[in-house]
């Protein structure tokens, strides 16, 4: 009986050991396995986002109204511009990565080093941009009132733009007068030590109602989309009634519980999906840095193979690939 391990491999046959099935090395093959499984994770998230969106198809926030900010350009409404910049940065860093892989095939250490460095810089700019995007989203724009049923009521007025009546959003601070605070924030150090609460909104619903009653021009906008796929604006009487009867909480900005832009699920998915993607970019940057130093130290020069750059490159391109889909489903569609 010669059933020893040494004899199980049959030479010159695929899968017999000692060669590379599908002409891919073990490392690259495993990276592809990982990428397929990670792609399924991300599509699970995006499909879940689709589920919630179809569930609230008539009241989902309009992305163009949510992501309108660009750093250093305060007060201007520029939808899409910043996120297009981020997309371009990520594609650009994908290009420098593939150039590094190409230089690796030619065993050109100086070029690999340079392109890896540029890739890392691109990744850092992207993660930084995402942090800024988050901070802006969390801080919020105009503020809103949440109803008993969890719906969001926003405020605005009709203004004349080139002879056309256009609905412009109005911030809470522009029409609500903040009187003395009704109560201060409950902190564990000055109350029950096992109870905590987040910071209180700047206004109470009563103050918002008074401000609304005092300003004849301000109207309430609900989340419901009308036939023109725009949010419904209530009449003056309906506006006052909506706040008086249903308003329970003033919401400024967004977090995992409340979201001034609309359905709180929108914020939840935004944090979760872009956060998970941002985490991938971050770990990609870390992997790139490790490989970068290995390149500098000449590890792959001695190995006479830059395949490690290729493997980390596959991961980096995958991160770019995922962003292409996140960009479409969060910002475009």
């Amino acid at each position, binding site marked *: 009986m010669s059933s020893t391990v040494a004899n199980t491999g049959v030479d010159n046959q695929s899968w017999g050991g000692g060669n590379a099935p599908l002409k891919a090395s073990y490392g690259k093959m495993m990276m592809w396995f990982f*990428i397929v499984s990670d792609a399924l994770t991300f*599509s699970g998230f995006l499909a879940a986002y689709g589920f919630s969106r179809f569930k609230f*198809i008539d009241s989902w926030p309009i992305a163009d109204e949510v992501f309108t900010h660009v750093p250093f350009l305060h007060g201007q409404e520029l939808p899409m511009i910043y996120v297009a910049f981020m997309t371009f940065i990520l594609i650009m860093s994908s290009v420098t990565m*593939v150039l590094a892989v190409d230089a690796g*095939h030619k065993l050109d250490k100086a070029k690999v080093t340079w392109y890896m460095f540029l890739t890392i810089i691109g990744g850092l700019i992207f993660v930084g941009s995402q942090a800024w995007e988050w901070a802006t989203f969390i801080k919020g724009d105009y503020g809103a009132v949440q*109803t008993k049923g969890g719906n969001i009521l926003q405020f605005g007025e009709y203004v004349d733009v080139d002879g056309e009546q256009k609905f412009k959003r109005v911030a809470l601070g522009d029409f609500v007068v903040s009187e003395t605070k009704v109560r201060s924030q409950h902190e564990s150090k000055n109350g029950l030590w096992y109870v905590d609460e987040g910071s209180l909104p700047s206004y109470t619903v009563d103050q918002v109602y008074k401000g609304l009653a005092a300003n004849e021009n301000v109207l309430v906008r609900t989340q419901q989309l009308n036939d023109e796929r725009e949010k419904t604006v209530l009449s003056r009487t309906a506006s006052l009634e909506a706040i008086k009867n249903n308003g329970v909480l003033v919401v400024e900005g967004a977090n995992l519980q409340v979201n001034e832009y609309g359905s709180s699920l929108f914020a939840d998915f935004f944090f979760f999906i872009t956060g998970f993607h941002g985490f991938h970019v971050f770990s990609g940057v870390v992997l790139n840095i490790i490989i970068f130093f290995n390149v500098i130290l000449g590890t792959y020069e001695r190995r006479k193979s830059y395949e490690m750059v290729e493997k980390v490159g596959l991961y980096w391109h995958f991160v770019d690939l995922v962003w292409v889909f996140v960009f479409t489903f969060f910002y475009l569609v």
Partner: protein
Amino acid sequence: MGHAHKLEIFRGLIKFKSNTQKIWGVLILLSIITAIEVVLGIYKPESLMNSFLGMKLLNWIFIILTIVKAYYITWDFMHMRDETKGLRRAVVWTAIFLICYLIFILLQEGNYVESVYSSGYIKRDF
């Protein structure tokens, strides 16, 4: 390591002289597609707002352009073009079948829940 790259895209319509040149060519293609998406996203032409197969025409265009971008990232940046047929199919078809199933089942159910809401059996503000 045999690394002979296939240097043509669009089924041979555009041929590149070197791998580096192909990379820049693909970058230009991806940038053009992204620019088209951004311009359409900002201006949202009225003519593309008609519904087609349950979704706005504009959204179909966005999704198709996204898949085109994904194709070129995978094929040229991740060098799927140079891999064997077996590896290519194992990766791509596995993902496509599973994702299509996932999308179908979730969007179908989301639609159903929406219909329950909109037919007025559930009210959110009392």
